[in-house]
């Protein structure tokens, strides 16, 4: 690409432009199997699978999916927590030209139903603990088959027995598929399947993933990511970390693989380079994660600020119980990385923690700090082949000078084709500028320094950053509150906790003739929203702050909340 001001900051050996081979995502795995058949590919709760075994499982499962009638272009929902079956599911879908539709494992039946219905998914692959939610969601979707797997399938034998005895029932992992002709166990399906699929020609421009994300106003849209988009992002990531050793690194996959970040940065990146992926089922189990890093001698730990903060502040770490010095590189995304968190984690590991930036519409990574000369508080510089500009916040049409704030726009091989069945939203987000190029308007407000470092200063999207880097759109929560018969008005905001995260708080006006307790509204939300979206607090008001013409201003709620907190402290 043409020279850009930020290229001067690239680490030595990092090219400004790359060659992208004509490979689909399935080819990346095939290549890894050919080159490193005996290298470990996945480790999970102590059990291990090498690349040959992973390849065989994927071959068999893709044949099984073909047996269910999945053909090229069909959408297949992946409603899974992190486990080996998640990797097998994605790879099998891609192998036969299917389109994976990931759903966050915390989603309720209603949230899953929306994504399954909107995408027109034909098959869902889910964990047994999601089975009830899938059944509830079935009406209104086009789902023809439910492929169910128990998280214990790939546990080592002893752990599997213990899990069956102790945790399976209480944890909601037991599912009874009898009486539902559409449901089948993944294990049975694979046992009965041919060893490999009928060959399908998958081109790099074919659609690989529909990744659902909220828009400016929180209505979820399916981001269309092609094989080329996702493969390119892997290669860009590799290019900015020239020191990583092929087939040597040990990656921790703790962030949800149903999110674009972990899908690319942890899973696809690992498979492309023959790394070992250590899959962590629940990143909130900080002690378990620390033990895993310590035991596995993990070298790569992609995360979010809240995770690094929780790891760094764990009593066991403070007491020196865990050796984290194997960790060489951490890319932090999703929210601003506080300097003290970064410093603390770098001290603990001796490795590098760099802040990056991305969004699902860009597969997702567009910016990252150079390992050699990063700048704290910034998202770094655009990756190879990635161009970025800042345009004015109003019409998003005028180029802003360095130092001036505006909307960040990016373009590059990782940028999506559009939103699924949403031509208007697509046209609004992917815009052709006067320079003749199509730019992705990120909706984030940023500033570029004179020498090409970018800093996010605000979001155009109204979004709450819940713990763990998960996004909550106030509108989604308000929609649910308004479903309650007593609620007349509702406003939802994020109240800051610590330096980066926010907790969800709702302000409501209720019908004076229908008294309701805060807890009842919280419970009401809990039944309808994923846990991280449920308000932690509900406050009752006589009226919400409004403008003269009656527009509800959440910012006034947030300002009042901040003022009150300051007064109380």
């Amino acid at each position, binding site marked *: 690409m043409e020279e850009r001001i930020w290229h001067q900051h690239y680490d030595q050996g990092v090219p400004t432009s790359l060659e992208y081979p004509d490979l689909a995502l399935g080819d990346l795995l095939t290549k890894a199997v050919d080159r490193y058949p005996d290298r470990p590919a996945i480790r999970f709760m102590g059990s291990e699978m090498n690349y040959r075994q992973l390849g065989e499982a994927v071959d068999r499962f893709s044949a099984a999916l073909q047996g269910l009638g999945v053909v090229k272009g069909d959408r297949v929902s992946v409603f899974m927590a992190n486990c080996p079956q998640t990797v097998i599911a994605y790879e099998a879908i891609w192998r036969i030209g299917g389109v994976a539709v990931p759903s966050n494992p915390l989603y309720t039946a209603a949230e899953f139903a929306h994504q399954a219905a909107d995408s027109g998914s034909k098959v869902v692959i889910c964990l047994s603990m999601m089975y009830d939610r899938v059944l509830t969601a079935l009406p209104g979707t086009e789902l023809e088959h439910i492929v169910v797997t128990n998280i214990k399938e790939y546990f080592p034998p002893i752990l599997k027995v213990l899990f069956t005895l102790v945790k399976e029932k209480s944890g909601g992992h037991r599912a009874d598929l009898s009486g539902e002709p559409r449901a089948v166990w993944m294990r049975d399906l694979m046992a009965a399947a041919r060893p490999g699929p009928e060959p399908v020609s998958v081109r790099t421009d074919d659609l690989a993933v529909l990744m659902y994300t909220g*828009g*400016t*106003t929180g209505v979820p849209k399916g981001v269309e990511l092609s094989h080329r988009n996702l493969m390119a992002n892997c290669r860009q990531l590799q290019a900015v970390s020239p020191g990583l050793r092929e087939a040597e690194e040990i990656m921790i996959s703790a962030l949800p693989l149903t999110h674009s970040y972990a899908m690319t940065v942890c899973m696809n990146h690992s498979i492309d380079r023959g790394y070992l992926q250590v899959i962590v089922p629940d990143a909130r189990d900080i002690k378990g994660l620390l033990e895993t890093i310590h035991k596995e001698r993990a070298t790569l730990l992609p995360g979010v600020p809240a995770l690094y903060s929780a790891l760094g502040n764990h009593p066991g770490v403070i007491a020196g119980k865990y050796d984290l010095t194997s960790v060489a590189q951490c890319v932090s995304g999703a929210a601003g990385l506080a300097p003290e968190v970064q410093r603390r984690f770098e001290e603990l590991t001796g490795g590098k923690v760099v802040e990056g930036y991305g969004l699902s519409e860009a597969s997702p990574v567009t910016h990252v700090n150079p390992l050699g000369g990063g700048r704290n508080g910034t998202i770094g510089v655009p990756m190879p082949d990635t161009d970025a500009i800042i345009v004015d*916040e*109003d*019409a998003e049409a005028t180029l802003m000078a360095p130092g001036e704030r505006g909307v960040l726009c990016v373009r590059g091989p990782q940028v999506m084709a559009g939103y699924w069945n949403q031509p208007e939203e697509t046209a*609004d987000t992917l815009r052709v500028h006067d320079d003749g190029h199509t730019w992705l308007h990120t*909706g984030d*407000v940023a500033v570029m320094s004179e020498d090409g470092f970018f800093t996010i200063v*605000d*979001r*155009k*999207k*109204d*979004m709450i950053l819940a713990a763990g880097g998960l996004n909550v759109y106030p*509108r989604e929560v*308000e*929609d649910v509150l*308004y479903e309650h018969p007593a609620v*007349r*008005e*509702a*406003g939802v905001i994020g109240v800051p906790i610590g330096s980066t995260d926010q907790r969800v708080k709702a302000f409501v006006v209720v019908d004076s003739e229908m008294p309701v307790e805060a807890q009842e509204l919280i419970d009401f939300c809990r039944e309808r929203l994923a846990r991280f979206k449920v308000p932690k607090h509900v406050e009752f008001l006589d009226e*919400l702050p409004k*403008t*003269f*013409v*009656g*527009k*509800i*201003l*959440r*910012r006034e709620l*947030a300002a009042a909340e901040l003022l009150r907190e300051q007064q109380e402290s």
Partner: protein
Amino acid sequence: MSSDRPRPRFIPPADVLPRPAPGEEPIVWFEMPGGLQVGLRPIHPDDRQALMEGFQALSEESRYHRFLSPMPRLSDRQARYLTELDQIDHFAWGIGIRGDAGAIEGIGVARYVRDTADRTTAEVAVVITDPYHGLGLGTLAVQALAVVAATRGIEVLTGYLLGDNKPMVRIFQGMGATFTHAGPGLVRAEAVLQDDAPGTLGEEACAELIRVAGRASHPSAPRSDDPDQRG
């Protein structure tokens, strides 16, 4: 507000067909570039029911743009606030079309409410029902509103707009507005009313708008449909 787009054509009262019945509430008619005829008249308390029904007919998106909230119902209190206007500090044009049976059917509302702290400033809100988006009705409504506002000593019109509400952003841009950030996804537009405002609609249309708006604010001008006022 200079624009090369075709403008709505004012229909002088003498040319309005069918002719209004004697004593009927005056309506200011325009013909849009596509041929649709729309009428503007001040909103009054009798419009409460129609306003509530109109609210229900809006798409979620339109409702969200109007109230910055996904509220599914308009409360009685809100509906009263939006229809019981003093016609000076709080004024609204109801926008209607002639339905099949000849009755006027409401398709939008444009209002201003004067700022209590700064009496030369008023906030604007416009809502048009979804089937009539993209026809230029929002622009017409804001212009008609600006004409009335100017006669009431209002010099600046403001609006809280979601960034993705492109039509309203463009309308304010057309008035030379400045925009300031007003929270995530939200901008506050501020447009100083220009002296040449009548030029865009035509002097004749402005005079008629001012006359009809003034009539609504004048208590001695009875409305034929108000039983308490009827002779």
